[in-house]
């Protein structure tokens, strides 16, 4: 009798072959050996790890059939003046613009900000000049939410990114902007932004992700098929206040992964807000650690899902110390046949008494064909805590819709207004006017296509 055995899942590398990796290594050969060693190890992990299996709880509801590593390339350099969309729309304290993994434009910090000791530079320069800081914080948190393979891929192919360091007691009054472009068919990009806010410092950092693609001939609205695996590390020291905004607006054909890792130390206050607008399939994993008493983390996200887009959001709030608090609010607006997945977990360690944790996923359905999935979860090992979670999905309110229409507002515009109304609770949290306007504009664009 023939023996039935299940073959081990194939470990796929797709376009990210050993040769591609060697080519990457050759380009970063000038970086410190410890870092190159980490990249080699990461590549080995990536190559040895199978694609996520159907049975993996961390991928429940996700469409795995469209997760492919085939058909991408490490793109050739482009110059800033070759990009079709060059308007940045934000005049922060300084900005860095990356395209196809390389720095293409920058505006250094103004003199006073630089005098205060704030460092705003490329990751490559930081690796060369501030190796210890980078070593301590760059990708220092484990991938815990199911994307080990893609996190390893990010670490292996990470070529450059942004480094922001705010020293003790310093306030960066203006936001710092980092722009990441992907340009050309099949372009694979690995953006990264590392933010270190030291004791009692204050900073706002905004990441913008955007495809610089001409609309494809097949479907003028969708743009080119690209691949993005981005990461962000945010470290907030004692009493620091760090605000991080990310605006994901890749082309509608892009496969996107984004990993956020936040560490909040004693009395630190972190606010992160992710806007998800682009990509065909976008997975976002957000991991927030409240590691010392008094730490507070706000995790906010807004998603406008339309067409056949799929947004897959996985979050983890870990309370490791007493008197810590976290507040997660993810709001999705779903149109057409779009699909969202929210899976969130609050973990309270045994000695994290007096934890106050909140988690909420709200879905506004603008179409009967859209699909919103919610998997909220709690894992509490302390006994004196307050943890609440909830998920709701509601059809857009017909009476509200009628009220707006009865004033002459067209149906599509009425829906847009109601979506903005639904988002206002989150949008209202952005104090910086220009960033607020940028976010609003990206959302508005989605109702035009």
């Amino acid at each position, binding site marked *: 009798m023939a023996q039935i055995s299940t073959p081990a899942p194939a470990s796929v590398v797709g376009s990210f072959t050993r040769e591609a990796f060697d080519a990457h290594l050759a380009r970063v050969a000038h970086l410190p050996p410890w870092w190159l060693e980490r990249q080699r190890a990461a590549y080995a992990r990536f190559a040895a790890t199978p694609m996520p299996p159907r049975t993996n709880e961390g991928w429940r509801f996700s469409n795995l059939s469209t997760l492919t590593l085939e058909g991408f390339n490490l793109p050739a350099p482009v110059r800033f003046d070759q990009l079709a969309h060059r308007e940045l729309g934000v005049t922060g304290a300084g900005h860095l613009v990356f395209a196809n993994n390389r720095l293409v434009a920058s505006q250094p910090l103004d003199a006073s900000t630089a005098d205060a000791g704030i460092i705003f530079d490329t990751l490559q320069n930081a690796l060369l000049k501030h190796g210890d800081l980078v070593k301590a914080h760059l990708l220092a948190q484990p991938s815990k939410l199911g994307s080990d393979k893609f996190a390893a891929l990010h670490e292996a192919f990470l070529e450059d990114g942004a480094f922001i360091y705010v020293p003790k007691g310093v306030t960066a009054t203006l936001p710092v902007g980092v722009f990441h472009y992907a340009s050309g068919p099949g372009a694979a990009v690995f953006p990264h932004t590392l933010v270190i806010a030291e004791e009692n410092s204050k900073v706002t950092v905004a990441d913008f992700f955007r495809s610089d693609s001409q609309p494809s001939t097949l479907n003028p609205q969708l743009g080119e098929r690209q691949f993005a695996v981005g990461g962000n590390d945010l470290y907030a020291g004692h009493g620091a206040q760090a605000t991080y905004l990310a605006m994901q607006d890749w082309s509608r054909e892009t496969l996107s992964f984004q990993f956020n890792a936040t560490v909040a130390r004693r009395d630190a206050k972190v606010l992160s807000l992710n806007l998800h607008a682009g990509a065909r399939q976008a997975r976002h994993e957000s991991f927030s650690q409240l590691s010392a008493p008094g730490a507070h983390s706000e995790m906010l996200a807004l998603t406008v899902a339309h067409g056949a887009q799929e947004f897959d959001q996985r979050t983890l709030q870990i309370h490791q110390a007493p008197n810590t608090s976290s507040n997660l609010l993810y709001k999705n607006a779903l149109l057409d046949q779009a699909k969202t997945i929210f899976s969130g977990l609050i973990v309270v360690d045994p000695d994290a008494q007096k934890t106050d944790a909140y988690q909420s996923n709200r879905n506004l359905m603008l179409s009967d064909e859209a699909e919103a999935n919610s998997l909220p979860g709690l894992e509490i090992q302390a006994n004196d805590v307050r943890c609440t979670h909830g998920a709701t999905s509601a059809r857009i*309110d*017909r*009476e*509200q819709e*009628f*009220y*707006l*229409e*009865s*004033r*002459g*507002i*067209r*149906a599509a*515009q*009425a829906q847009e*207004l*109601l979506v*903005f*109304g*639904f*988002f*206002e*609770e989150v949008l209202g949290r952005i104090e910086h006017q220009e960033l607020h306007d940028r976010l609003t504009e990206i959302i508005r664009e989605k109702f035009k296509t």
Partner: protein
Amino acid sequence: MSQLEIKDLHISIGDKPIVKGLNLTIKPGQVHAIMGPNGTGKSTLAKAIAGHPDYAITGGDVLLDGQSVLAMEPDERARAGLFLAFQYPSEIPGVSIANFLRAAVQARLAEGEELDATGYYKRLYAKMDLLKIDRKFTSRAVNDGFSGGEKKRCEILQMAMLEPKMALMDETDSGLDIDALRIVAEGVNSIRAAANPPGILLITHYQRLLDYIVPDHVHVMWDGRIVKSGDKSLALELEAKGYDWVKQELAPATA
């Protein structure tokens, strides 16, 4: 100047007929008041004319300036000049009055035409001052957490901004205190005093409002029909005698 004609109108909710053959013509600039007991179909009439999707028109027609509005979407009807001041205005969290009204004004412009923001705010503030609405309200969410009276004033503010040809005002007076009633009435009267005053259908339970906004005609609605019409004195008579009086008058006819 516009005219509204309601012809033998039948309206159902689900399978249930609510309005059962109603006829009414509002000539340009006229004010008609409709009074009638609770549940008689007054709001149904107003909302159906505005195009609410829950109400099925099973017979008859509604013409604005000779054009049937029944095939139009609610937003088209509004842009054609109809306005409904709701008995129970919806609360819309997160959408500010300023943005909401701006969208409504913008919707009336030709495609590609940009709203003149300065002029818009100037006009908005002037109307707010007239209606004694605090300018801070512009940044508040539409009707969200408004008191009953504030909601009604906000309806009139919208009417003043959108300058309809025909306004259906459904119990705009209920929930208003004495001062607010006067302010709202003054607001409506100033709209009436404009160059091209709208026709107004005023649904009310209280004769008091009609002291402020003097109607050209008063109608009594009963079980989905207009059963009695007269001038302002009809409202006074109703106030004195109650609806039982109308019922008794009707008895022989319906027996």
